[in-house]
């Protein structure tokens, strides 16, 4: 169910180009508006839909199996810390939901650049970098070392 851009609403700000994890939102050379260059590779993450300040990006269902006439629209309000969804079913019913964007204050998560570089000697450890400290647990369960029997 790939994204598409309402060309009249788009103002060509480029937010969707920056945020698309598939790098498939680009700027078209005729109108300088965003467009999805490869709909087959869109995984409907909704990142561009949420980021677009003009609400110019929508997601469409494939006509052969998606409920026609239905829509899922989203409104992200960062200052208020909410994300709202409006679901329109094909029988006309409407449902709206509002959720907090996150449950911790903005800026409270330590970014990866603030961690010390990982120790190369830890490559043989089953733990990932900065575990278990970054998970804020004392220790993670470990499998006992496997020692094959000599035979």
């Amino acid at each position: 169910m790939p994204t598409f851009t309402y060309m009249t609403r788009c103002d060509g700000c480029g937010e969707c180009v920056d945020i698309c994890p598939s790098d498939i939102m680009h700027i078209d050379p005729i109108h300088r508006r965003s467009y999805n260059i490869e709909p087959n590779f869109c995984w409907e993450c909704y990142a561009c839909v949420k980021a677009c300040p003009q609400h110019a990006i929508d997601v469409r269902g494939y006509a052969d199996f998606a409920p026609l006439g239905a829509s899922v629209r989203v409104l992200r309000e960062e200052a208020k810390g909410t994300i709202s969804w409006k679901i329109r079913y094909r029988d006309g019913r409407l449902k709206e939901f509002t959720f907090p964007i996150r449950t911790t204050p903005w800026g409270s998560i330590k970014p990866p650049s603030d961690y010390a570089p990982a120790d190369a000697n830890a490559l043989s450890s089953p733990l990932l970098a900065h575990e278990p400290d970054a998970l804020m647990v004392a220790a993670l369960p470990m499998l006992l070392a496997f020692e094959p029997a000599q035979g």
Partner: protein
Amino acid sequence: MFTDNPFIAAAAFLPPRFLQVYVILMVLAVVAGTLFDLYHKRSAQFFTQQRAQSSAAATRRLSGADVASIAARTFAHDVATFGEFCNPSRRLSHVLMFYGFVLYLVTTVVMVFGYPADPHTPAVLPVLWNIGALMVLIGGYWFFFFLRVNVVHDGQPPWRLVRADLFIVALLASVSFALLFEWVAMAGNPMATRVFFGAYLFFTTLLFVSVPWSKFAHMFYKPVVAIQRRVEEADGSSDLPTPTTTGGERCPPSPT
């Protein structure tokens, strides 16, 4: 100096009537180009369909006063001050280009029709003409080199021109050659005056004749879209969720 009517220099090799006929032809080109654009891209049909769909989905009926109030707010915010843009740099560059172009265009028309080859043109007109041209160039070159989305966000080199650049390139070339023509005329170089005036006419013609293929028409349809969006929010036909922020949060914080 910059207080003299710049079109007097053209009167040395062209009759004043030439520029008057030229301005009228350019106005007709913009009108014809816009009508062709409406027909060719079926923009009028699209907006009519959109309006019919939102009217059918409306949960509240708006009075004439409501619509007039929305139109006034749209004009004040989205049209006059380019409030649609969340990026302040893009907003400022558009303000400079738009108001500079209006100033430059109006003073051109007044000087061409009101003071053709008249050495006693009020100084305020050439001064405003120069200020308008400089505003277009500051906003325009800023936009062209540093703000174009395909350059800033899509990683394209600034010199790679595409069809979307037709409008900005024609506008910048037209205004740049207008100022060059004025400067070489002031310097008293008749050959360069003719060459730069020819380039000025070429790019000005390109600017106004290319309306159906350039981004010129976005000056007309963007206000229509802005009104439509506000009407949909007011009559309940918007497909977006109800904002949790009073009045809605227009522009989220953005690094760009």
